[in-house]
């Protein structure tokens, strides 16, 4: 195997990173606990944002790892481990959804429908607490299973350098695709759409998916750029690979806009009361400005920032835009969730800050531990050499 010619020296991340990660995690946790004590309703809504956001990064990263195997792409192989490490966040997902399971009745109106509300009672076979919990647990176990299967083979390959493991991962990834599509769709329906249980939109699963891939890609890009700066990868990352990352970010920015616009236009145009009220709530009072802000931050800014060819190759620009997109996804989820908590004005206070800090801490800590125990470069991967030599 020609991959043996690659020399890789494992480098440890500085201990400082661990301290920062743990510090943020603990600080976030304290704010969250305080928040739950002061205003459990509001905290529960924030909890949903945090859970869906972390799911986006964790499961979305696993999706990208699987896509790399399936499509046979080589340019991303040198930094595929970043995606694998981020998908390890799947393990800590229960931390964010278990508190919610105790607060289901606070946030989900369908847990206690009025007897006259025939529509909600008609939905009871799907929207009931037991089935809801069964669904999230099953989804979680599925994600965990595929995370385990894919990363285990990848890890094994570091030692055995067996290209058969890649073939096996291709097959696992193929099976993961429909699983991913179904679980992400129903996660979106359960945790985001059913917050307003009378509302429905068939595209909603794809809407959440478009945000998911953006967030996962942006998170990975941030780690790749920062690690590359400190020279953690073999021979560094070539601008052509950055260009590919930038092009993907740009493409998915447009994809999000396309899906969001399709959903809006169809509901706005048909003007059916059973659908429009959802958008009207997001156009009421202060939410109007939040909606305009969403278009700017999730579409216009990254679109302009990544439009030109040189900007897609520039790591500094990519870093900024990935930060914007990551923030934008949190903002997007906030825009989906919070109008159910407060109509007419946009609630923002210290309670909203707890979960983002907690998540930042979690992501850094998990990444640190994974990178401590595993190689940051898949040294046994047969595609690695081609990936390092990749040119457009």
């Amino acid at each position, binding site marked *: 195997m020609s991959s043996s010619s690659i020399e890789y020296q494992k480098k440890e991340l500085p201990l400082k990173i661990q301290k920062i990660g743990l510090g943020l995690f603990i600080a976030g946790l304290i704010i969250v606990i305080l928040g739950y004590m002061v205003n459990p309703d509001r905290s529960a809504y924030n909890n949903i944002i945090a859970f869906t956001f972390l799911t986006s990064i964790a499961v979305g990263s696993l999706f990208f790892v699987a896509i790399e195997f399936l499509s046979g792409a080589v340019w991303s192989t040198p930094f595929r481990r970043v995606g694998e490490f981020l998908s390890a966040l799947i393990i800590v997902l229960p931390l964010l959804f278990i508190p919610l399971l105790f607060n289901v009745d606070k946030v989900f109106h369908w847990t206690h429908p009025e007897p006259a509300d025939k529509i909600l009672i008609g939905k009871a076979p799907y929207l009931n607490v037991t089935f809801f919990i069964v669904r999230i647990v099953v989804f979680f176990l599925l994600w965990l299973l595929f995370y385990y299967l894919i990363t285990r083979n990848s890890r094994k390959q570091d030692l055995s350098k067996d290209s058969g493991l890649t073939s096996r991962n291709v097959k696992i990834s193929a099976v993961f695709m429909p699983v991913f599509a179904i679980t992400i769709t129903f996660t979106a329906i359960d945790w985001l759409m059913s917050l307003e249980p009378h509302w429905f939109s068939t595209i909603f699963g794809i809407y959440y998916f478009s945000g998911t891939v953006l967030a996962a890609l942006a998170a990975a890009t941030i780690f790749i750029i920062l690690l590359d700066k400190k020279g953690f990868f073999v021979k560094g990352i070539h601008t052509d690979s950055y260009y590919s990352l930038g092009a993907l970010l740009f493409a998915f920015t447009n994809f999000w806009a396309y899906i969001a*616009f399709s959903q*809006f*236009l169809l509901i*706005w*145009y048909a*003007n059916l009361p059973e659908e429009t009220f959802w958008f009207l709530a997001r156009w009421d009072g202060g939410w109007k400005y939040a909606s305009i802000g969403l278009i700017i931050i999730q579409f216009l800014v990254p679109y302009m920032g990544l439009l*030109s*060819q040189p900007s897609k190759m520039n790591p500094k620009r990519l870093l900024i835009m990935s930060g914007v997109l990551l923030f934008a996804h949190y903002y997007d989820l906030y825009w989906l969730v919070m109008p159910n908590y407060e109509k007419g004005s946009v609630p923002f206070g210290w309670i909203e800050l707890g979960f983002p800090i907690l998540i930042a801490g979690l992501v850094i800590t998990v990444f640190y531990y994974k990178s401590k125990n595993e190689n940051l470069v898949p040294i046994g991967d047969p595609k690695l050499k081609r990936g390092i030599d990749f*040119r457009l």
Partner: protein
Amino acid sequence: MMSEKILYSLNAIFDTPDEISHAAEKIAEKGYKKFDVHTPYPVHGMDDAMRLAPSKLGYVALIFGLSGTLGALLSLWWVSAIDYPIVIGGKPLFSFPAYIPVMFEVTVLSASIATVLAMLFVFFKFPNNSHPLHGTGYMKKVSSDKYGISIQADDPKFNEEEIRKLFESLHASEIDLIFWDNEELNHKNKILEPKFLLFLLAAAVITSGTAYFSLNKLMFMVPFNWMMEQQKQNAQQKSLIFDDGFGMRQPVAGTVARGYMPYEFKGQPDLAGEKLVNPVPISKESLKIGQQKYDTFCSPCHGYHAEGDSRLRGQYPNPPTLHSDKVRKWSDGRIFAVLTDGQNIMPSYSTQLTVDEKWAVINYVRALQRALNAKESDLQ
């Protein structure tokens, strides 16, 4: 013959992509500017090897794309909100979300067309089939499977011997000279060539003939005229459906058309004078409408000043003045009855004037009357 020809370039042929990349690099390094590489397909890394500046076509796309977006937005706004404002489907006149699809398409269309046209006609100066390289053995080879490099004779550093040596040192498989074709160089297109003029004439006759035929003849032939001549009851046609044979029907007894009030005092002008009250207040607007309608419909007989001194005087029984005591003492309702029913030779003006317009005309007649018979108070 040979001596008269002007040298265009010195060319070399290479057999592999590696050799040509290397050669291009070396020649760019030596500082030649007017040279070009000819390959059967784009070879990777050649732009860097030749030290070419990046293509500027991206800017063309950006500028034309943005002007397409903006132009579409402006014209949609002007068409739907200004020039032809019609509410459709309860949407606002300026419905931005509904314009996005068209704006997008226009952006893509203008940017794509402009970029390609700019490339072909501005950057490449195409069409150009009289280039000296055309029709040479060199072109035949580089179009198929060889890689060529050509240094133009007008390059400031051009020196045939030096370049020959350079090519040989780079392992060129063939080296040859290419000359301008004198015939093509001296060829001038004549606009007034009879053949060309004949072609223009024929084109003009055919286009205008086709246009005339299709617009003035074809549209009136079967089946194209079926929209005009439909199988339906026209206003004055005999009906086979109804017993009375009329195509036009009377309204059902006891019904009134929307926005229409029946006139109750037909043939009873005095009763009308008693009962009817002018509902239109005297205002600048109503007087203006009254003047316009009076000048149009009344002045031919009664004259612009209502003195009965019209342009038609002498052709009919003379129309009376409206300044007589009789008319001045009539109530507005009595005049309304005249306008509605007519009087003596004067016909009804109900088809020409709406109810409100009649009242406005009456207001204007009152103003004319006051002009000749002003009250004391008017002088103040």
